[in-house]
Structure formats: C-alpha cells, structure tokens
C-alpha cells in the first residue's frame, strides 16, 4: 500500500476512534505481562472498561474450570473488590485464592436464574468502586452483551463473562456474535514433564478468537501463578516473541 494512502487511512481510523470514544471515560488497559499476548491486543493489553468473554475448550466447556481461573487471574491483578455472579455453586474458593484473588476481595452473588444473573452483572458493571465483575453464564445474547458493554464503558470496570454450558453440544453457541470486546477460549494442554514423578504448572492453550480492532491469535502459556500472572513456557521463552500461529482476520 502506498505510504500516502496509508497515512490517510490512519487519519480516518483515528477520527473514527475519537468519535467512538467521545462519551467514554478514559480507561487504560491491563497488560498480561507476556509479550506475544500483549502485542496481539490493541493498546497492549486487555481493555478495562469493556466486556470480555472467556470459555473453556473441549470438555472444559461444561466445567469451565480453566476459564474461571483465567478470569480470576485477570481481576486478581486489579485493585479493589470483585463481584462474582454465579448460578451453580461449584466454584471452589481456595483455587481462586491460589490464583492470586484473596478471599476478602470476592463477593459472590448467587442469582436464581439467568435473568437475575444478567441484572446483577449489569448492576455490578455500573458501579465504579469494583475492580471487575465476573459472571458465569451460558447464554449471552447480542442485546444483553451490548447493554453490558455500554455499562462497562460508562464505569470503566472490566466485565468478564465466563461462558459455560450444561452440555458440550451447546458450546456451539460460542460462535454467535456478541458485543464483547474480546473473546477467549482457554483449554488444557499437556504440561511439561518433570524430571521426577509429579505434576508441574498447568499449561493452557489460550485462543484469542475474536478481538475488536485486532487479529485472532493463539498462544500456549503456563497457567496463572499465585499472583494471577500467565507466563511463557520455559522451553518457548527463549524463542522469538511471536504468536505460535495466526489465523485469518476475525469479523470485528
């Protein structure tokens, strides 16, 4: 592309961005601290006043264990209390604590049904004092997600929808479009063998399936440590910093 046209395009992009962000609070981003992931995200990290979707891959679409820990790792690195909305009480709090989210910071909301759950999620996102709101839900419609996204933009609070379904077959719902800024899928990956019998740090395949203003990408990373940080696997860390695979541009 010629340089002159490119500059014009950049100018237009900046204008559109300015229009889009006219009524938004200036919000920052939360970097993952892992160079290839941050490079794949616009702004160099997860946008704070926005809605993000996380789901488990494979069998974990039902359990959502890795997705919950991924979300815990994100909100653990932000200051302030966290609202965690659930309908099924099978989340085990010690695991969140081991992902860096202290028990004193988490307020659980057990909503009776999906409607109440969404209302609580939105109410939490509208409140400016929170570090973030996590909501475990199976359904997230376009309308609901747009409401949530607007609420998050207005308050600057990060919203994480952990998608989990009753049956693995329902996980096809994850292909439906929503207004979320990013969409992630976290699935288990065999961990590195230790020289002694035992289990090392868990390893995840983290797919950035959709991201507003950036390409899809996927990474293989070590799971959250006790401060909620992901890390490049030791044997990969010395290689050049680039996503392991790139796919076509996502619809944004």
């Amino acid at each position: 592309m010629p340089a002159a046209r490119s500059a014009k395009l950049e100018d237009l992009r900046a204008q559109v961005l300015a229009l889009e962000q006219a009524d938004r609070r200036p919000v920052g981003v939360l970097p993952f601290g892992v160079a290839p992931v941050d490079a794949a995200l616009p702004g160099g990290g997860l946008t704070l006043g926005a809605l993000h979707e996380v789901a488990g891959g494979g069998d974990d679409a039902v359990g959502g264990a890795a997705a919950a820990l991924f979300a815990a790792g994100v909100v653990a690195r932000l200051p302030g209390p966290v609202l965690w909305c659930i309908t099924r009480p099978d989340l085990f709090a010690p695991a969140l604590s081991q992902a860096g989210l202290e028990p004193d910071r988490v307020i659980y909301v057990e909503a009776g049904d999906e409607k109440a759950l969404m209302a609580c999620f939105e109410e939490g996102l509208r409140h400016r004092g929170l570090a973030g709101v996590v909501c475990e839900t199976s359904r997230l419609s376009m309308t609901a997600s747009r409401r949530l996204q607007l609420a998050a933009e207005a308050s600057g609070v990060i919203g994480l929808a952990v998608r989990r379904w009753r049956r693995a077959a329902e996980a096809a719902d994850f292909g439906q479009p929503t207004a979320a800024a990013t969409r992630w899928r976290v699935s288990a990956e065999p961990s590195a063998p230790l020289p002694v019998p035992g289990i090392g740090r868990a390893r995840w395949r983290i797919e950035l399936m959709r991201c507003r203003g950036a390409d899809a990408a996927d990474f293989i990373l070590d799971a959250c440590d006790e401060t909620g940080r992901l890390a490049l696997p030791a044997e990969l860390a010395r290689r050049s910093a680039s996503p392991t695979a790139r796919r076509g541009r996502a619809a944004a």
Partner: protein
Amino acid sequence: MLTGRVGRRRVVTACNAAAAASGARIGMAATQAQALIPDLDLRDADPNGDADALDRLAVWAMRRYAPVCQADPPGGLAIDITGAAHLKGGETALLGDLTARLQRVGVRARAAVAPTYGAAHAVARFRRDLDVVGEFAIDAALAPLPLEALRLPAELPAALRRMGFERIGDLAHRPRAPLQLRFGAELGRRLDQAYGRAAEPLIPVEAPETPRVEQVFAEPIGAPETLARYAGVLAAALCGLLEARGLGVRRLDWLCHRVVNNRIEAVRVGLAGPVRDTRRLTRLLTDRIETIEPGFGIERMTLAASAAEPLDWRPAAGRLGEPAMPDVSGLIDTLSNRIGAERLYRLAPVESDVPERSMRKLAPLAAPTGKAWSPDWPRPARLFRRPEPIETLALLPDNPPTHFTWRGVRRRIRRADGPERIFGEWGRRDAEMWAVRDYFQVEDEAGERFWLFRAGDGEDAATGSQAWFIHGQFG
C-alpha cells in the same frame, strides 16, 4: 386462672393446663370453678394490658418480618407478607422462624400462610396439618373447618348448626340470599373475606418513635413515573428528618394506600448500613416500583424508617492523599433487595482439612479476615457437590490410578501427584472416626487435570470402602 366480667356474671376468661385438667373451662362461672378446685389462684383479667402486649408483639413482627402487621385479638397476629417472604428464605422458612422465635420466649404459637387474611386466620387456628395455602387452594383448605373459623359473632355458629350447617364447606356454595335474610349480612361478608372476594385491609401498627413522612394526594396517582417522583420527594423529606436527628436508615417501609378498597401496597427495603443519601434511597425504592399495583390510583403515601441507626460523617480515606476505599455498600443494598440478602456472601477459610468444610459464608460487608487458604496444597477450581464414583485401575496402596472412566469417557493418566491424605474429623461425626481419603491430582493425555480420591487408605477396610471418586476439576 383469670376471670373477667361478661355482662353481670364473673366468668373464667383464661386458665392454665393444670386448671383445665381439673375441670375448669373458659366461659364457666368463676364461683363454679372455685367450687370445683380448692386453693384456686384467681386473678382479674387485664384486657387492656393484653391488647397493649399484643400491639407490642405486632410492632416486633413489623420490625422483623413485613411492614404491614396488625394485632388480631384475642391472641392473634396478622402479617401481610406480600413481597416480604423471600427476605427470610420463603414462606415456610418465615413461618419456621416466627414460631421458633416465639417459642424461645415461651409463647407456643401456630402460624399459617394463606392468600387472604380470613383464610390464614382460620387455618392457623383450626388446622394443625396445613402451613401454607396456595393461591387456588382456599376452598380445599377451608371446607372441612368448623364455622367458628369464620370470625362470626358469638351466637351465629350455634344458630347455623341448628339449621344443619356444620362446616364452612356446607355454607360456601349455598345461595346467598336466603342465608342473608335469616342470618344477616355479616355471614356473607366474612365468607367473602375468607375466600378473597371482598377486600379486607390490615391497619398497620405504627411505632410512635419511627421517623415518618406522608404525602396525601388530592387526585389519586398511578403512573410509575409519578410514583417514582413522589418516592424521591418523600425520600428527600425523610432524609431531612433523619439529618436533624443524626440518624441513618437501616430499613425503609414504603406504604401506598390505594383509593379503592383501602388496600395497602407495601415495599420494604433493607440496607446493609445506615444510609441518609436521598439518591440512593430513591434508587432502591424505584427499583421496586413494579411490585406496586396502583389499581385505581394511590391516594396516600407513607415513607417510614422503621429501623434507623446513628449516622455520623466520616472521612473516606484515612489520610490525605491516600486513595479512598471504594464503597460498595450501595451496590450490595441494590443487589440484596433484588435477589435476597442471603444470596450475597463472601467466603472465608475455616480450619478444616475436609475440602467441603473448609469455608464459611460471611456477610458481604463484614470486616476483612485477612486469612487465606494454604497455598501449598493445590485445590481444584470446580468442586463437585458430591463426589462422583469412577472406575479406575490402580496399584494399592499408594499409587495413583493408571486410567479412569468418568461419565462414560475413559482417560489415560499421564502424570499424577499424591497422595494427600485427609483424615475424617472424628470430633464432628462418629462415622468419621477412622475415615481416610487419599487425594491425587492427575493429568490425562489431553492435559486436563482432575482431583481424584480413594475412600480409605488402601489397606485397612475400616478406613473406607477403597472405592475411587472424582471430586473436582482443576483449570
């Protein structure tokens, strides 16, 4: 035994179980009772004192359960729990709580929930087997009851019985006109009230010291926007009143008196801490506007701080320049009024090795405990409510399984860690005296991690069945 006057006779109005066993009856002449029982302790009845005590009980119930409560003499209490039962965990739970609390102060009470005041009155007094009457079950609940359950004038049940009417069911579906001609309008009115065909408003008991503001409308209002506006006006007036007294609201009762049939639509809002912020109170009230049925309009509105606590100004941050602590009490109030306060909680560690018991619930705004679970023992992100049995192949006593089958899927185990031995808590249950669980963290070929345990130590049958279970999923 208590005596009082009925007309010119001195009669027994109340007696205890011992006196009743000796033959005393309520309504008996006092002299006759004295003749029956030697050394009888006769006291004068104090109907005014009784009424006062019942009113105090109604105020207590108003503070604890629902904004509209009325004394129902003799010896009864009517509570309008419309829209208030969920705060105590449902109707049955509310009844249990009510009777248990009265029991603790020595009052044996019987309570029932029904769609109408009349039906609840009858069921609570005359049916031991029924607690909660559904919307469409009034007829079934009332039909077998004696006529006294209808709150009729004293001589009417006997007169009806002479005509062959024994139960409410005999009367309920009779043509009304002949009955009315013979027995007067009262019978029909009471029947209609019990069956919900005629309105019967409760007159709410009021505690005199409660800060309260009122607005009377010349024209009845009904549109939600208008209700919301006046909720704001009343909230502002109430906050002014509270500021003068240095108080903050802990519980807010909003009563809307309907213009037709004098029904009261009540909204109760609870707060986690004392609040005197007009905007926040208005917001909590307008959240609940959809529960108000204005009918033909609302002519009077009352807003009362039925529970208030001292509230003083407080600095938001400990020192200048420090970031202020975010205040989430507003959010907690909104959510707990919407879904029930018991559904919002924090979890705090408990000293227990058994994973299911390692946490307890705290109120969301309780002081931070500063404690966390031990980081040394890995714990799964999902813990199943009850462990699910799995089929495994494992070497006894200490080796992890080589593979296992769960929910029809067979998984080969590539890596494993364990055992982490957890002993039963013999102090809690005798059955756990020797119980042992050996937990293993395992990873299958795909990299998914599970938390398995064997019930028993692999050698001694007294420690458990030696069967394998899956208890959780790691992320």
